[in-house]
């Protein structure tokens, strides 16, 4: 269906397109655009970032909802607990949608509770998956890392919850000083969290793309761009208010990662087409082929990284 030469050309072409798209997006960014339209400047920066985080949390929740539904259905819901991530991720998705539409500042206890519950489910899921691996012959072997319950998958749920939790913290902040989460100024805190999420997700993509033998060169993109984005984000956080070029580059690579997450779903659709019977045999190949809903996780995390930038910019303005 596709020769190796065609795949190489495709990977190169798509990388170019993604770069152009992220450059265009970056160009149309107008710093502080929201603030001009709103009277409550300070409050709005926080709210704007909170909305972006809601968007990220929602995307991750959507990814988990679709992915866990498909994978746990494939596992025949053998354990009742396998319904849990489905329920919590849908709740997180709904509440993130609501949060993104909600123009009010201030904490919402229900959203907060859902996000905390989402974090808990993700942590429990990781423990469950590790337990599942541990009881198989070979224990922590490649075979089990490839094919047993995926260790990294429930972390997406944790990340969704954490993004949401952060968004709630932001909404609570209206004072004229730099708010802190976990002891760090909010921009730095969100930035480091997004970077960790990007790295972890890239690690999972790396494991699964290694399982697929990187048969399509495009499979290298999600294991290289997100770690680069994470590195630049951490550097931005560490560098402090100066280094405008670094910030520009960091935002650009985050945007690349965000667009890539969506393009990734397209590549996975192509992967499904390359399974026996292709899309005509969708009932089987949606499960046998690469997971369609997984790549947008990167988009969600990249949004969080961009929100961190907004907050960092704001922090700079507030800095004495």
């Amino acid at each position, binding site marked *: 269906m596709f020769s190796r030469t065609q795949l190489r050309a495709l990977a190169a072409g798509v990388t170019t397109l993604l770069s152009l798209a992220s450059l265009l997006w970056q160009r149309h960014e107008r710093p502080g655009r929201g603030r001009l339209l709103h009277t409550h400047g300070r409050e709005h920066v926080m709210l704007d970032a909170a909305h972006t985080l809601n968007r990220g949390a929602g995307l991750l929740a959507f990814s988990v909802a679709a992915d866990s539904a498909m994978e746990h259905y494939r596992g025949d819901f053998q354990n009742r607990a396998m319904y849990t991530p489905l329920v919590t991720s849908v709740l997180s998705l709904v509440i993130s949608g609501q949060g993104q539409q909600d123009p009010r500042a201030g904490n919402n206890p229900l959203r907060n509770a859902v996000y905390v519950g989402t974090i808990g489910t993700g942590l429990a899921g990781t423990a469950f998956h590790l337990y599942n691996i541990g009881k198989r*012959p070979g224990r922590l072997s*490649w*075979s089990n890392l490839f*094919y047993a319950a995926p260790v990294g998958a429930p972390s997406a749920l944790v990340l969704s919850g954490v993004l949401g939790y952060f968004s709630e913290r932001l909404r609570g902040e209206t004072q004229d000083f730099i708010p802190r989460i976990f002891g760090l100024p909010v921009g730095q805190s969100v930035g480091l969290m997004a970077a960790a999420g990007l790295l972890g997700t890239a690690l999972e993509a790396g494991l699964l793309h290694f*399982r*697929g*033998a990187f048969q399509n060169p495009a499979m290298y993109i999600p294991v290289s761009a997100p770690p680069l984005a994470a590195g630049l984000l951490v550097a931005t956080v560490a560098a402090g208010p100066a280094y405008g070029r670094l910030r520009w580059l960091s935002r650009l690579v985050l945007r690349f990662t965000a667009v890539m997450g969506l393009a990734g779903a397209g590549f996975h659709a192509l992967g499904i087409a390359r*399974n*026996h019977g292709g899309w005509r045999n969708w009932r*089987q190949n949606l499960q046998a082929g690469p997971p369609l809903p997984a790549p947008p996780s990167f988009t969600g995390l990249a949004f969080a990284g961009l929100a961190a930038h907004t907050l960092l910019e704001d922090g700079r303005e507030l800095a004495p």
Partner: protein
Amino acid sequence: MSAELYLEALETPRARGGRAPDVFSPTGWVPMREYPLDEPVDFAIVGTGAGGGTLAAKLAEAGFSVVAFDAGAWWRPLSEFASDEEHQQKLFWTDERVCSGDNPLVLGTNNSGKAVGGSTVHYAMVSLRFRPEWFRSRSLLGYGVDWPIDWQDMWHYYREVEQVLGISGPVRYPWGPKRPRYPYRQHELNASALALARACEAQGIDWTSTPLATLSAPRDQAPPCVYRGFCVTGCSTNAKQSVLNTWLPRALKGGAEVRDLAMVGRIETGPDGLASGVHYHRDGSWHFQRARHVVVAGYAIETPRLLLNSACPRYPDGLANSSGLVGKNLMVHSNQAAWGLVDDEIRWYKGPPSLAISEHWNYCDDNKDFFGGYAFMSQGPLPAAWAETQVGNRGLWGQALVDEMEKYNHQVGLKIVGETLPQERNRVSLADERDAYGLPIARVSYSFCDNDLRLINHAMRFLRGGLEGIDAREIWSETEGTAHLMGTARMGDDPRTSVVNADCRSWDIRNLWICDGSVFPTSGGVNPSLTIQAIACRTADRIGDMARRGEL
């Protein structure tokens, strides 16, 4: 489509008129170059399996003119391979043969194929390398004979074949020298393979995912394996990487011609004592293809049969037979199994039959009361094959058979591929009877020797212990059974004790080559297809070198 249509390929040759079947499409064609009969081609290759098909591709790509012949049909897997064990017997070489000896061979399913692509069309895809010491088994291990090829040379060619077939193998292989990473990752283990893993852990030995020639991710026109489980009756998705869908498409692109339903009956030799071409039967009559070189790649029964049947006044004992060894030293693999019943649902028909393997007794020489080694693998016989095992080995019939078959989904098993020693008494010769082409049929005599039986006993004790270790019940041993064919035209360093040299060139006739499992001096405890292809790759490279030096 009617049932007859699925057999259309057997009726009239397909590869003609400048085109050949496209194996990647249900009905399509690909262009094929054709060569006239009366002009000598560089190479006439008899057989298109692991030896001949590989060689055809490599030689054609090196710029030689090549015509390859196969007695079998050119199937299109996507449209002509049914999920039906009985129907798929169309892939086996079941022509009449006289089988004798203490352990007369059962020919067909696991040792001979009759199709373009040879038996790789229905092989179990198990792609293992020989243990390095086996290439010098006489000097290092005290049995058999040494190969004339160095193991590092062979490992170089193993690498080439593994790349071409996109072998899906484990990230780390537990035995032998470090090997390069397999091009594709291991497959998911089925419950049958997990049972092997648990049995090995109970016995305290290593196990791993089996390196298999079926894809674990898409590759070119081939999709990844769907774990349909009909591997040994013909893969209908092309996930299996056989000679039919890897080397032969390359051969055609390289300019080779492949003639299907073309049975070669005799190699002609000229007054100079050299081979001058082959007589083959196609379309109801005999034809003669002139050639500068003839390669015989018909596997360990048909190869000696053709050489012996090509006897002429100058070579009264058959071609390449001054050593008297053509047809002798036929080897098989012992293929015994231990079976048992477990409480868990296994459903071993899912996926390739042998997803997990232990080569422990190939690499460990401690406490052995026999020479050689064996690998053992998890099993997944399809229902008809399993019923046949019950009838053939345990004599179950009627209600007893029905009752036994009820347990099918809970059955587990471990089966060996065991090394057998070369013995001159195990041989292929010509019988008086003649087949449909008027050719004398092969007489195949085979008997295990004491060492072979000791190996089998060791294996059966060990495998039963493994099954006991996972609390299997109703354990029984299948003591009959062989797989694969090797020997009958062994390679060596000395014209008096071998038929061909390390380059697969016959000692007696310098433009006659033998390139298939026949040239194995020893059998090793692993499935032979990877080694045959590696030898073919090496031979092609050597032929290229010799041509450049004017030594052909």
